[in-house]
């Protein structure tokens, strides 16, 4: 009995249970988000969206996933094989890693690292590497264009993103996500740092390659951008990673600005998920409102507006912290 108790409390079991939970969450979240996206887009265009499979089309995504699994995995003749095969895995792995440090509630966290936010920011950048790998290895001009754009986009949004997050970390004095949430028990940081929230959401939209910053996959210009040559489950992995990335940036926004698990009556996990899906709805709302920006417009916008504003915000935060 004692041994069982020890085993249950041990790190190995915690990591295993966490991994299984994370993989299950990733799958369910992607299924739900694809359905949600189709419904949101449909209602914004006065359409009903998927209605046939299940209640209001709720299991339409499962049918689509089954179809995708049945599809042939096409590998074009001229691709760079090892990199081409590796790219979907590389895009998906960091996404799984980021989940390990997200605090769903006070106790529901796989590993409470003291560098949590740094880990998330570091690993989410790997997505760009995967996109570059996939686009380059495809040996297709549209795919290469998508990959190049993704890299250019990366230098545009990454700096304001990090600087914005820094202003929150200055206020808390810790990289630990649980500490950041705990610091918001009285007042959410969105009220103290509204400008930082806006900047963060803009950068998060760019980070997840969502419209208006979906330059790497711009389907009206580049066929499908970096994943033009991918089919079947390889394409599905890119798709899954995109929607999971959306969940992660929304979770980070919830932790940094919306008070994480804090909320009356309902348990912490429920509050956390409600806030996360509210942020995701905001990002979807952007997609069906704004047209895609041009590459140079994005870079100009980032360097002339986002970066100065985020630095100004950081300086102001530091000054106010010093005075009070």
């Amino acid at each position, binding site marked *: 009995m004692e041994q069982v108790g020890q085993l249950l409390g041990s790190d190995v079991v915690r990591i295993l249970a966490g991994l299984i939970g994370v993989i299950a969450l990733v799958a369910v979240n992607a299924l739900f988000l694809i359905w949600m996206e189709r419904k*949101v887009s*449909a*209602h*914004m*265009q*006065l*359409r*009903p969206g998927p*209605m046939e499979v299940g209640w209001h089309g709720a299991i339409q995504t499962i049918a689509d996933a089954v179809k995708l699994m049945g599809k042939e995995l096409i590998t074009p003749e001229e691709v760079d094989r090892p990199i081409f095969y590796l790219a979907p895995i590389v895009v998906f792995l960091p996404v799984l890693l980021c989940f390990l440090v997200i605090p769903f509630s006070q106790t529901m966290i796989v590993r409470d690292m003291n560098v949590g936010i740094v880990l998330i920011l570091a690993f989410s950048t790997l997505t760009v590497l995967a996109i570059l790998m996939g686009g380059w290895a495809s040996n297709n001009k549209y795919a290469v264009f998508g990959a190049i754009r993704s890299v250019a986009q990366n230098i545009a949004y990454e700096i304001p993103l990090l600087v914005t997050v820094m202003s929150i970390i200055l206020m808390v004095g810790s990289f630990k996500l649980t500490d950041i949430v705990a610091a918001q028990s009285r007042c959410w940081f969105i009220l103290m740092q509204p400008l930082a929230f*806006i900047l963060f959401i803009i950068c998060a939209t760019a980070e997840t390659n969502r419209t208006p910053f979906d330059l790497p996959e711009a389907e009206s210009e580049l066929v499908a951008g970096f994943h033009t040559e991918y089919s079947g489950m390889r394409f599905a992995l890119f798709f899954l990673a995109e929607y999971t990335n959306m969940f992660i940036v929304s979770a980070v926004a919830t932790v940094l600005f919306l008070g994480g698990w804090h909320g009356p009556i309902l348990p912490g996990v429920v509050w956390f998920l409600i806030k996360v899906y509210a942020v995701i709805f905001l990002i979807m*709302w*952007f997609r*069906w*409102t*704004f047209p895609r920006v041009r590459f140079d417009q994005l870079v100009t916008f980032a360097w002339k*507006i986002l970066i100065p*504003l985020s630095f100004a915000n950081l300086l102001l935060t530091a000054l106010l912290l010093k005075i009070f």
Partner: protein
Amino acid sequence: MMTYFKEILVGFWSLLMGMAVTIRYFTKPIVTVQYPREKIEMTPRYRGYPQLIIDPETHTHRCIACEMCSRICPSQLITVEGTKFPGEKQKRATKYVHEHYYCSLCGLCTEVCPTTALEYSAEYRLAGFHRADAVIDHLTLLQQRQKTASLPVTPVPTDADIAAAVAAEAAAKEAKAAAAAAKKPAPGAEVKE
């Protein structure tokens, strides 16, 4: 410097205005009709296939089987048959079949009808699995419409009815001819005399 901040604020405001538009549409009721499950009211001037008018007084059709419609039809898709039933002044349709797959909806049949027996229906759901699904038997259709309007149903004459009516009419004709012959002696006899 002022223009820089002004530009940012104006731009941000315009983004918010755009989002207000989409969220307003998000909350509006959807306009798409779920085709096989939902039905919409067509406008009164919608031109569907021609159908028999239910007469408001007699609660039945007005077709006298004159075959004007089948003759004027450019696609020759209307088949009308009629018989004169005993005790009635005019012929009455016993069969009215409209092969809708040939129909160009020109409307000549409804215009030419001397008794204004035809109108355009408001039915727009005409998809079917077989060619036979597009053949419209107007007398059965009329019965269905009478049933839904809870009116007395006009029976479709069976072959036996038609044969009886034809026989009765022939007998009546013969009787009439015989009566005429009896009343007036044959003209040939007078000439002979």
